[in-house]
């Protein structure tokens, strides 16, 4: 994980580093004794989002693509919850409050609806083509 601490200076050589010197203090501290902050949740959300994007682009099974979408939505939800929680913010820092949780709740509901419709489309495709390989779905290719 320490290799990420050099990422800003490598990626953006012209831009000065922030005052906290990027990620070095986070990983130098003992993770078992330091309290959890927003940045920890943001890391988890970024990992889930990236895994979902990779899943959506890599899988050829239509259901695998659906699972990637679920992962992406969950990564976004983790960020909403992290920004809405006063437990994770510094003293007096602004939070999203209850609004973040409401938006996360709507995301969960819409993900359920999206999964139902996408699954129905997948089953319809399976009925018509006898496969769930999305590379075979080229009927509209000119």
């Amino acid at each position, binding site marked *: 994980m320490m290799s*990420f601490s050099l*990422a800003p200076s490598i*990626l*953006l050589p012209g831009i000065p580093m922030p005052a*906290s010197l990027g*990620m070095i203090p986070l990983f130098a501290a003992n993770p*078992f004794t330091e*309290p959890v*902050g927003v*940045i920890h*949740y943001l*890391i*988890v959300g*970024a990992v*889930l*989002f*990236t*895994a979902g*994007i*990779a*899943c959506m*682009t*890599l*899988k*050829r*099974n239509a*259901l*695998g693509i*659906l699972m*990637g979408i*679920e*992962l992406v939505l*969950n990564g976004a939800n983790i960020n909403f919850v*992290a920004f*809405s929680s*006063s*437990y994770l*913010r*510094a003293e007096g820092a*602004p939070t999203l*409050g*209850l609004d973040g*949780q*409401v938006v*996360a*709740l*709507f995301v969960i*509901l*819409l993900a*359920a609806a999206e999964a139902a*419709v996408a*699954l*129905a489309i*997948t*089953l319809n495709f*399976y*009925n018509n083509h*006898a*496969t*769930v390989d999305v590379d075979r779905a080229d009927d509209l290719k000119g």
Partner: protein
Amino acid sequence: MTGLLDMDISSVTHVIVPALATSLPTLPMAGINWHSVLFLLFAGLACGFAVGVVAADNVVRMALYLVFSLGSTAGLFFLAGAEFLGAMQLMIYVGGTLVLLVFGVMLTAQAPFVSIKPSSSDRTLAAVAGASLLALLLTAAFSVDAWMAPGVGEVPAPSATPLGMALIGVRVDTPPAGSPNGGHAGYMLPFEIVSVHLLVVLVGAAYLARAKRRRTPRAIDAVASAMPVKSAVAATAAVAVPERTAVAAPGRPTGGAKSALVGGGR
């Protein structure tokens, strides 16, 4: 909730640690923040199983890893003080959406489709693109100093009642300190829109996934044509579909997927 957990366990360790101190003098038990330990546990599970979803080729294992990953995410929600949202994550996502996905996996799990392997060049490309995206996201997250500050551990109020009131348009929670607009928005209209949306999705999913109407006749038509016409209803049924009754096949397979496999495969 988390504060109580912290207090209980630390009081226990205050009893146990002096007893251990003679044998293990360097054991740093007293300073352990159990909220952080639980966070690391659930975060590791969520991230590890999310990577497992990407790495696995078998679609059944992908579904199982996704269940574990989303369940661990519910644990993260609990640790952030969003207990109602964590419960909804478990009930709707893990209990509803993923069961739906598992049903989809079962309905389409013919032997050639259980594991469709991507090519190795696609794998390499996805790994490079994913690493680049992750580096970009982490750089953006670490570039804001206010997000780097550790939390103060101020336990949030229980959120189920304020959430329910906000969904019907009445806000009873106190606005957070330093709130940018200082005001509250009710969520009555989005709640109604989502309700109608769910109804439309229910109807649409049932319409899309219904069994196909066949050109072959129904069993009742075959019975009506075989019997001598006695009633007006049977007469109209027989007149309306004369050409379909001629090709009655009593032993045709039922069920959409199986008949499509027999007749309509590419």
